[in-house]
């Protein structure tokens, strides 16, 4: 079967991992998968979905796309009878199945974990990128949890520039460290990249600083930092392999004439900490 994977975010780590995992699943099943990326551009994404529909593949896979952002095009695919599998997106009537970790829940989980770790009070630095709808959901999760912790205060917030989020996060953190000195308790990173930058900033500016960092994605560099007992203490890993596997399974079912189990399937996220990695830090 011909399967086309479309996404605007291929160079971001989770998206890329999912795409590669899905491709691997496809290879197992003998599918011919093609990856199309539109470099953060949704206008382009709409056009490329149209082209793909015109080329009549057997299925379309959207990764990290809220289907409402390209509603007409997804509807056109559905109308043409092409199944649309969404990974890390949203469910909808034109979407055959959406396999995801709930981003809002990820935000809630991260915030709860972080706030518990600093004893329910303190100053945090927030790194965010609300232009990405999925990441924005995590920020809303944070806002929700903040209501329960009146003693946690956002001392500074930085909108992370993409491309180049690690270095942007690093430079911002260097400057925050100058501004606040030791008066920071934690870094909340909506995705791991700026958190990695924050750790690098700490290493060069204030290696003895007390604050901790937590992020989302399970980025390998972040995991490495957690393992090395740095300030980076946890990352929530969405199970991309599992998502891709479930997505491929469901698609297999559909292509064989069957039905999906449900319009939306949640894959729980996994918390990665020094403990889960089997190291003890002091």
């Amino acid at each position, binding site marked *: 079967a011909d399967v086309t994977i479309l996404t605007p975010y291929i160079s971001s780590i989770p998206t890329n991992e999912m795409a590669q995992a899905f491709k691997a699943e496809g290879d197992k099943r003998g599918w011919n998968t093609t*990856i199309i990326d539109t470099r953060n551009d949704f*206008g382009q994404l709409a056009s*490329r979905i149209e082209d793909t529909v015109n*080329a009549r*593949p057997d299925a379309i896979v959207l990764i990290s796309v*809220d289907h409402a952002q390209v509603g007409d095009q997804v509807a056109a695919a559905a109308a043409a009878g092409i199944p649309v599998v969404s990974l890390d997106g949203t469910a909808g009537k034109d979407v055959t199945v959406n396999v995801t970790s709930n981003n809002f829940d990820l935000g809630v989980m991260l915030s709860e974990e972080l706030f518990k770790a600093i004893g329910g009070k303190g100053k945090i630095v927030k790194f965010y*990128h609300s232009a*990405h709808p999925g990441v924005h959901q995590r920020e809303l999760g944070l806002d929700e949890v903040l209501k329960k912790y009146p003693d946690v205060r956002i001392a500074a917030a930085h909108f992370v520039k993409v491309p180049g989020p690690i270095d942007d996060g690093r430079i911002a953190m260097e400057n925050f460290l100058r501004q606040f000195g030791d008066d920071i308790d934690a870094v909340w990173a909506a995705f791991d990249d700026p958190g990695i930058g924050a750790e690098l900033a700490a290493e060069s500016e204030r290696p003895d600083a007390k604050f901790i960092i937590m992020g989302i994605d399970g980025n390998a560099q972040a995991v490495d930092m957690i393992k090395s007992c740095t300030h980076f203490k946890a990352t929530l890993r969405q199970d991309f392999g599992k998502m891709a596997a479930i997505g491929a399974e469901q698609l297999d079912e559909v292509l064989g004439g069957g039905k999906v189990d449900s319009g939306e399937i949640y894959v729980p996220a996994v918390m990665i900490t020094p403990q889960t990695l089997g190291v003890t830090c002091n």
Partner: protein
Amino acid sequence: MMSDLFGKYGTLFALILIVAAFAVASPGAFGTPGNLINITQQMSLLAIVSVGVTLVMAAGEFDLATASLVSFGGILVMVLFAAGVPAPLAFVIVLMAAGCFGAFSGFIVSHFQVLSFVATLAVGTIVGGVTFMLSDGATLFGGMPPGVRDIARGWTFGLPTLTWWMIGVSVAAWLLLDKIEFGRRLYAIGGNREAARLAGVRIVPNTMAAFALSAMLAALVGMLLTGRIGSANPTGGGGYLLTAYAAVFLGMTVFRDGEANVPGTLVGATIIAVISNGLTILGVSTFLQDIITGSIILAAVLVRRIGKAK
């Protein structure tokens, strides 16, 4: 004679060749009328932005605020809708606001003779900041009156509505640049600013008008894009910057040597749109697409240079 034609229209021949090649490679999908019409829809937004850029470049300047203004237009119109402003009024407000930013750039560039590259980059940064503030950095969904989507979706008189927008804007800009005195003035300024000044052409108001029109077209595209995809992103216009300039510069190699011109820009935008449509339909992966796209663009401009006797 032959080589003369090639020298003059080489890039146009290249376009025809590209279309023909794709049509042969994929007659069932690329070559269908439906797909060709769809290409006109897909290229329409890029074409409109590029036509706006053409106006500024005719006057010999750059406008790097273009991409920010696209995002700005999309976000502002959504914010206005959400605030309950009726659609027609919202459109007018957005266009006026963008026009003011454009006129401001034009004024700085022409009156103070600041290099347009720095000036418009600075204005673009400011516009970007305003856009982020308006949207709080988030993608805006919903709140769009149903009538509004129709300006950017669906079909009118047998063609996609967006295609009509492109046709309308292009014809208007072509009239403006090639048939009206205003256009002659812009080209005179762009061709030799000093000569235009010596001849009494009023540099400042004409340059301001070019920037303002270009900014308004960018904001229009922002609104149309929002209509097309149903949401507005504060960096949604980012992709248009380099591609629009690519279209205009490609177009400068067609029809008229080294002068930005509307028909040329359309050829440029078509080349870009056809390549990505064709390659996607052929199932070429993005990474390879980039390499092929770059090579085809190079070939398209070189064809003409090589055709031209030295």
